[in-house]
């Protein structure tokens, strides 16, 4: 029976593919494909739920195929079905279907009708991968797809400033989560010394707990990394401020992503990884504390929100906080029920949020009471006012990240700008060449000298990517530094004892082409348009949509997004990092965080945002 699980890969994927070849005005066909695919998926999801419940709630597992296999390592697509999958699948499928039906009329004649459905259905692919994943590799695949489609739908109105700005903001938060997730997966690989399969978790938790006795720090590390990843994705304290800013796309995409599903991915992750941390005291209390703070702050900030959508965002954050507590306390059925209720309610409220105007004004007409007692009247004035003011300021959470993370990182990046000096670039290239030469002469490094140390090389990868990240003028220079950083990254892996030339080939097979493709498209746009820099948005997608798409594909490939073999290579290289190379892991994952942001930033700055040319209607920057 578990073979049926494959249909949750096939149906979403085929529906997505089916939606691709049509033109924007072929609305009926595009929406028809989406509606029928999602209808089928919902029916199957409900049927499977029924079957599973009827046959005694047994877990299902299905191995699909091995994408890549080498020695003890096997990158396989594995699917899994248990109560968490069951509930998420039913809730997600039903809501996706309803929102798809809603969108057919709602999105009518929108210039991005087809783009919307493409992204929406691609999201569905990622979502099902994640929900049905039976191992971390599959899970991560889905997670990445959700992340990118999230960005693309926030930045759906790509000719305005705010959607792009906030899209980049959400992306920057997501990257923290991504890095944490990768770190968590890497540590678990090494702790278990094999691939981690979710179905083994029940038994493995014993093994795991035995292992954590030997490596207590590693066990704690794994738990905290997963919690961090979950907190980011579910907009929990202190990451909450991205959620209300994600409502830039059409109301329908905001509803399905940030009301219904994407925002609950953190909940899913914690339910999934529960066996890995439930015996540990600290993570458990950390979750409870985080959930409690999110619930309280979310409610307070939600109460002062004067806009329909942000109010719903914070109320959702508060409820997810409660769900997190329920998970930590082991009340998983309750958590799942609560998740379903929250997803349904917020989707409904968001879809209906434009009604607030007439409904609430009408309500005021009849129910307005100027003498209504104040909120929290029992509190002393100063405390009440302090709570109010801080809630309007969103408890300075945004400032927190800006002051303590982004700003120092940017400063650091800028302070490294001397690396752009031609002489230093030559030195870097020399280092690289010597590395290569050294590598071929001594294929297996005997000792760790400073220059031929993988930690050092990965530091160079990090430095070069930071230079690219903070580059404000030349897009090409930023791109070259991305390339340089990639080379250092690859060599840092090669400098370890165990590495596999096949993996390197796999990795380079995609990224070399993507690098060259990206370079060519940048050169083309620079030759066609004047004054391109990375200091502002240019919106050249208005005149060059194809070039923009091509560059986006190159950028996505080079950052290891699952559309090319580079993705596999990326994953494999990461799992290749040896246990005693923590420094390499740290630098590599930092590189990985910044890399995606940098490449997407180049894309956004050149192709998205208000168009530089004003012969047609261009929105005000503040709108």
């Amino acid at each position, binding site marked *: 029976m578990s073979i049926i699980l494959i249909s949750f890969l096939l149906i979403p994927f085929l529906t997505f593919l089916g939606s691709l070849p049509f033109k924007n005005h072929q609305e009926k066909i595009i929406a028809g494909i989406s509606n029928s695919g999602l209808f089928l998926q919902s029916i199957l999801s409900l049927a499977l739920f029924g079957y599973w419940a009827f046959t005694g709630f047994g877990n299902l597992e299905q191995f699909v195929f091995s994408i890549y296999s080498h020695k003890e390592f096997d990158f396989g697509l594995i699917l899994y079905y248990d109560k968490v999958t069951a509930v998420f699948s039913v809730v997600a499928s039903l809501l996706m279907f309803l929102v798809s039906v809603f969108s057919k009329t709602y999105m009518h004649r929108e210039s991005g009708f087809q783009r919307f459905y493409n992204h929406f259905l691609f999201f569905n692919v990622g979502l099902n991968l994640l929900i049905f994943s039976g191992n971390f590799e599959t899970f991560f695949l889905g997670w990445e797809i959700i992340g990118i489609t999230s960005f693309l739908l926030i930045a759906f109105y790509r000719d305005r400033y705010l*959607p792009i700005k906030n899209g980049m903001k959400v992306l920057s938060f997501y990257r923290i989560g991504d890095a944490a997730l990768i770190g968590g997966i890497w540590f678990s690989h090494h702790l278990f010394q094999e691939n981690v399969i979710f179905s083994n978790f029940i038994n493995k938790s014993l093994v795991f707990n035995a292992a954590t006795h030997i490596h207590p720090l590693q066990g704690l590390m794994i738990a905290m990394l997963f919690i961090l990843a979950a907190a980011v994705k579910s907009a929990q304290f202190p990451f909450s401020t991205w959620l209300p800013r994600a409502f830039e796309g059409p109301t329908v995409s905001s509803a399905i992503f940030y009301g219904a599903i994407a925002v609950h991915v953190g909940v899913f992750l914690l339910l999934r990884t529960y066996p890995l941390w439930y015996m540990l005291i600290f993570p458990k209390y950390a979750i409870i504390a985080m959930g409690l703070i999110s619930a309280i702050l979310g409610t307070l900030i939600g109460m002062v929100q*004067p806009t329909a959508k942000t109010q719903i965002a914070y109320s959702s954050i508060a409820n997810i906080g409660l769900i997190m507590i329920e998970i930590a306390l082991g009340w998983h059925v309750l958590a799942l029920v609560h998740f379903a209720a929250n997803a349904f309610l917020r989707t409904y409220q968001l879809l209906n949020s434009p009604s607030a105007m007439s409904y609430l004004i009408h309500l005021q007409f009849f129910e307005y009471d100027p003498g209504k007692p104040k909120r929290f009247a029992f509190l002393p004035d100063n405390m009440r006012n302090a709570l109010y003011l801080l809630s309007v300021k969103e408890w300075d959470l945004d400032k927190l990240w800006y002051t303590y993370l982004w700003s120092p990182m940017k400063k650091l990046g800028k302070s490294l700008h001397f690396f752009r000096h031609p002489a230093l670039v030559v030195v870097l290239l020399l280092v690289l060449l010597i590395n290569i030469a050294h590598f071929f002469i001594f294929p297996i490094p005997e000792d760790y000298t400073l220059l031929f140390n993988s930690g050092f090389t990965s530091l160079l990868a990090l430095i070069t990517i930071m230079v690219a990240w903070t580059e404000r003028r030349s897009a090409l220079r930023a791109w070259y530094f991305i390339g340089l950083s990639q080379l250092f990254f690859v060599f840092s892996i090669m400098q370890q004892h165990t590495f596999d030339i096949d993996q390197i080939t796999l990795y380079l097979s995609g990224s070399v082409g993507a690098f060259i493709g990206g370079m060519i498209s940048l050169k083309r746009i620079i030759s066609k348009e004047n004054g391109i820099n990375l200091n502002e948005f240019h919106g050249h997608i208005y005149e060059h949509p194809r070039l923009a798409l091509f560059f986006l594909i190159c950028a996505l490939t080079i950052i290891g997004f699952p559309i090319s073999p580079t993705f596999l290579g990326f994953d494999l290289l990461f799992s290749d990092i040896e246990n005693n190379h923590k420094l390499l892991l740290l630098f590599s994952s930092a590189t990985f965080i910044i890399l995606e942001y940098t490449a997407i930033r180049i894309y956004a700055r050149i192709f998205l945002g208000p168009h530089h040319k004003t012969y047609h209607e261009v929105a005000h920057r503040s709108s």
Partner: protein
Amino acid sequence: MELIENSKVFDLDKTIHRLKHYLPSQMTLKDFVHHNTLHPFQSQKFYDGIFRASELFGYKVTLQINDFRKLYALGRIKEEVIDRIVIDRKGPHNSKEIVEKMLFKSYDEQIVARTGQFRKQWKKQYKIDLDSLVHPLFFRILCAYLDQGISLWNFPEHEGGFYESVKQLEKESGFSFFETKKVKKLFHDENKSIADLLKMLVGDEAYFEQYLFDMSFSHRGWSGIVAVIDENPQALLIRKKITLAEVIRFELLMELDQLYLQLGNHWEPLAVNCNTPAIEILSPTHSTELQEILRLWQDAFEWSYYDDVLKGIKANRQRSKTETETFFQAIFCIDERECSIRRNLEFVAPECETLGAPGFFGVEFYFKQIGAKFGDKLCPAPVTPKYLIKEYDVEYHAHTDKMYDEGTHSLNFLKNLGLGFWALPELALSLFKPKMKPSISDAFAHMTHRSKLTIVNKSLDDIEDGLQIGYTIAELTDRVEKFLQGIGLTKNFAPLVYMVAHGSSSANNPHHGAHDCGACSGRPGLTNARVFAYAANMPEVRSELSKRGIQIPDSTLFIGSMHDTAADTIEYYFENDLTGKFKSLHEDFVNKFEDALDLNAKERSRRFASIDTNQAINKVRKDILDRSVSIFEPRPELGHGTNSLCIVGRRSVTKNLMLDRRAFLNSYDYRTDLDGTFLANVMAPIGVVCGGINLEYYFSRVDNVKLGCGTKLPHNVMGLIGVSNSSDGDLRPGLPWQMIEPHDPIRLMVIVEHFPEVVLKVIQSSEAMYEWYKNEWVHITALHPETGEFYYYQDGHFNHYHADVVELETISDLQSLFEKAPEMITNHITDATFENLPIYQIESNVSCQ
């Protein structure tokens, strides 16, 4: 551009006054009152005004030249019209050369706004993006303060107003919205004026006004709404004290705060290192060749349509008319959406005479529904009524939707769980079986069906909220008389006269007010219809009227009713149950109305992709009804889209012409008013109401993202006063894409059936009225009632306008015309315009009964 002399002194009051003049003046969305978006420029001629607006603020004010060229290639702009316009405007000498330029010369159409240039220097000089740093929190504080009922925890207000409230909040909380100590101190310093702050921020006084324009126009939506509330506190239901000046002061402080925070003391006032001289921001603008070419195109576009209309009217006039006996009369609003229901009603009921007049039916008042705490203004926006009408003798039922329960925004676990599982079936139902519910704006819910109204004043001491409750008999008689005389209905009353108001039900639509009756300040007009009918039925009023020469026979009954223009339904209101002859007549006429509504629904459905026009008519009708209560439908109806004409005259001018719902129709009979006394009353609201609607659609169409509010799909409701695109975005005044798609951006052509000299005298009788025509924001043509010739107004005169007599295409089967009509593939003008059908002569195939 004029440079500012160094000696110039900054005058804050003058600058504030100027800002208020130029900022958008749209009211809050609950009172959607259509107005000329570029009203500040109306004292200039149309083209001078719009191009000036473009240069000052960067708006696009016409279609792009390429769009015009495409419209020409598609035949939508006619060659002969271009030739005529060019010769007319530029003389015959170099007309060829000009046409050549129109068609082929390439122009740089980029627009660089004058505002914003100086303040941009922050980014250039210090790489600091003040907008990004200041706007989000600034908007949030403003919105929280002005909020009308979204937030569950309200801004702790202080009677001193906005600035004072924030100050008190900071004082009492010990926390601050400001980051730096320096600015915190400045904030609480009473003695610091705006000029002092500008001195710190900008330095040189010559730049002050320019800076304030730059700053305020960087978020014209929020500045605009503050200016509106500052001027009319009643714009808000729940009053908030706020002035533009204090908001400017607050924003300047927020900017200073960010400068100190980001740059410490390493910055100087902006003017210090600025190498461009200060400019007089409002100094005259200059015309360019491109503008000349664009105005020729615009004129040609407009006249390509008007020409057909004038020819159509002329041809129609020459056809013989069959007079039928009138059994009932129906008086609709002049609204161009009622143009089709009138035609359809006349088609199914040739015994019906239809008339049109502004839909508040001459009775202006505030209306308080049972249980309501506030009154609704039910008359055109510029009028301030002195009367209050209240409901009584009926029970108040609260209509609440549990999905909006405050509990869903609290940690009330059970409520969230319960409502969560309720939400799924609710959502599914609203998708597959849409029906009316409390969260949907129901046009008929503005008055309680079986209520009684305080129409007649009992005592002059009956005052509430400073308003007289009800009208005296004399006041009622005045209003009925004036109204009937205006539409020329002073005799030949049919047994039943329906006053058909209109409103529009729509779901999930913040702009629902824009679909309601413009003559009732963006609200459904059902109460007005009822009040008028009640007054006209009163024996006391009738006997007074008869003394003034209007005899309404006892065999005539007025009935108030309302047409829901989205759902295509009509409801009727009676003070007493109908009996006898009236009852049977009414039953008969209701069937006629229903038949007309069927046809109307079908006609409208041709523009709706979700409805198949060819299916059985009752199915179309059902789909139209469902559409008005569908939360997923961003176009419950198309509002005033396509409006382009206003015809003041007898129905015979337009009867049997297919004007495709594009004409405001105001009944008026010159024979009862040879010297134009009543015409002045009739014409008074035409510019401000119809012209306002037309120009709002015009500007929202030509620059939907700056002058309109863009696509409505990402809109977020802000404090119940407006919409923005995101949580951090500026308020967006104007109309959304979904409303203006079918609209051809052309100015309104008013056609008045009267002698040209009378029309001229009338429009010149009031400066406010005359401005619309004098400055060409609205065109006007007089139709000579005796000769049938046209006289077009230009530069102070009505000149004869020659319209060829052409045989119009005749059509007998309108239904199949609608079934076959094209539907736009994209909403780009060159696609969209083909949804608008040409003028047809309708062959009436129903003989007299």
